């Protein structure tokens, strides 16, 4: 019986001939902790780690992204405690200027196809975007991975989702992810490793793959794995033989086909990412603010699209536009290409790289009754303040900022 993609990644990392339900020890290529819970990892290691709490300093590092630079004293204390530990043991810290940890891991080339990454970020399963394993875990598990390079994992059962057809022009990866949330809600894929196939997956850009895989957590899945296509292989300068794929005769617990032919942009309405509607169903929802960024939609491609759409237009009077590039590298490219200027001139605020508006209210919370359109991944009550958050792609976010109400990219095109 053939193995699935996840089973093959595990098999190549010490999991031998594993299949669903087995509990196996996995060798971890990238052992990380962020500023959230990172200090607890340090505390665990100081308590249990002995003389040499880190087995391989080359593979172990911290990524600060939640609260950067720290705007609360507890975060400042935690970050500094981590820095001191890292200096003592020779570990690298991707500090407050670097950006979202999971994106840094990909950009720096550590999170390559077929690799394994763990950390304290619950969206680390985003690594599925390059056909790699990633998982967020508690501080004890992560401390253990720092110390030994391994974690145990119960192999989840795998399901296959084929995305059939081609979405309508102007429809983005975010809309495809929202279509999956609409179809599967948060329980049908619960605890599964989901492999994504079909024409869309074959032609998706790395940025598209990042967006889709970043919403696996909201789908309740362990991970959404996209087998590396030509574009992704090229990004890493790899051949197919060097990446990991499912066996041809792999068996899945379930196989689904989701028709995305002609798919139009979608919006997740408060207060659940699975509460998905067509834009045309939403009647005249006035917006107070728009946030563009996060691990879901904060890549260079995302922000270039935002800049191109808003160029020569203006944010509607009374509406805030907050933009946060995911990483320092993205920031630098946008700066060099003059794209930040387009956003700035249209009336947007641009913040430093990181989780920004998604975590800890770095660039603003919503007040009671405030309506925000966000390109991030969660709109639970209280997550981004007391207001109501609608989740959408870049086109919808820009159109809503310019028109001052939830609007589609086609409506934007009518605005001069």
């Amino acid at each position: 019986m053939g193995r699935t993609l996840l089973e093959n990644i595990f098999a190549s990392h010490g999991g031998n001939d594993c299949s669903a339900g087995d509990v196996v020890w996995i060798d971890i290529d990238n052992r990380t902790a962020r500023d959230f819970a990172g200090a607890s990892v340090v505390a665990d290691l100081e308590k249990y780690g002995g003389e040499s709490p880190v087995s391989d300093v080359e593979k172990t590092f911290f990524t600060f992204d939640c609260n950067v630079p720290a705007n609360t004293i507890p975060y400042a204390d935690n970050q500094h405690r981590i820095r001191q530990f890292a200096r003592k043991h020779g570990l690298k810290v991707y500090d407050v200027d670097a950006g979202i940890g999971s994106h840094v891991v990909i950009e720096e080339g550590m999170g390559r196809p077929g690799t394994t990454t763990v950390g304290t970020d619950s969206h680390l399963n985003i690594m599925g975007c390059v056909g790699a394993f990633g998982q967020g875990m508690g501080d004890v598990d992560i401390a253990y991975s720092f110390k030994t390079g391994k974690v145990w994992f119960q192999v989840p059962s795998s399901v296959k989702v084929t995305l059939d057809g081609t979405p309508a022009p102007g429809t983005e990866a975010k809309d495809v992810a929202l279509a999956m949330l609409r179809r599967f809600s948060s329980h049908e894929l619960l605890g599964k490793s989901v492999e994504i196939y079909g024409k869309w997956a074959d032609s998706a850009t790395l940025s598209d793959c990042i967006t889709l895989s970043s919403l696996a957590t909201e789908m309740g899945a362990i991970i959404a794995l996209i087998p590396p296509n030509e574009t992704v292989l090229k990004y890493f300068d790899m051949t197919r033989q060097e990446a990991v794929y499912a066996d041809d005769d792999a068996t899945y617990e379930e196989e689904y086909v989701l028709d995305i032919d002609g798919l139009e942009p979608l919006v997740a309405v408060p207060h659940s990412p699975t509460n998905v509607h067509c834009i045309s169903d939403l009647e005249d929802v006035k917006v107070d603010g728009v946030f563009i960024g996060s691990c879901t939609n904060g890549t260079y491609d995302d922000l270039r699209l935002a800049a191109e759409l808003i160029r020569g237009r203006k944010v509607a009077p009374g509406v805030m536009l907050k933009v946060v590039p995911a990483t320092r590298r993205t920031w630098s490219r946008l700066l060099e290409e003059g794209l930040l200027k387009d956003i700035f001139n249209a009336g947007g605020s641009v913040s430093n790289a990181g989780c920004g508006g998604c975590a800890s209210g770095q660039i603003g919370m919503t007040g009671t009754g405030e309506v925000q359109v966000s390109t991030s991944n969660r709109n639970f009550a209280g997550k981004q303040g007391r207001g109501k958050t609608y989740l959408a792609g870049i086109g919808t976010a820009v159109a809503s900022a310019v028109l001052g109400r939830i609007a589609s990219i086609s409506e934007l095109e009518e605005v001069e």
Partner: protein
Amino acid sequence: MSHELTLNGRLWVLREEDGLFGDIDTDMIYHNAHLAVTDVDKMGQYAFGNLAGYKDFAALAKPGDIVLAGENFGSGSSRQHAVDCFRALGVLAVAAKSFGAIYKRNAINSGFPIVELPGLPDSLFNHFSDAVLDLENGVLTSGGTTYQGLPMSTVARDIYIAGGLFEYAEKMNGGNSA
């Protein structure tokens, strides 16, 4: 802490109207009002303090008890308190039809035994009956009835015998031969 693979105890059967109590989340097990407590010994008093019908659990439970529940025990947040509160009371193990994924990790990592009994008929076992729980084979026996659940994984057994994840690492000589 006991590292026995066969546990003898008294069965605490958690029920709601239509059978074994299901979907007991970590807030019902250990309410978030008490998360600041860091001393494990002080956690016992809050066990099930927010579970309808079982708020007096901590007062009535005895060392040697084995908790039996329905589906999805320990869903919700990742708090370790929801495992440690049982340890503080001397509860030997929790058996349930299924467990929340994070709860399972936390229990295994801290060397607290849990046994999964998928498909367990709701009225097979009686409250406060004497029971024998065979962890390794995942078998619960009580009142002359036996139910075969899932055997403990090798990993869970090794961590349990070592007494916890870091104790296991120690034993494995820094974990290099894990």
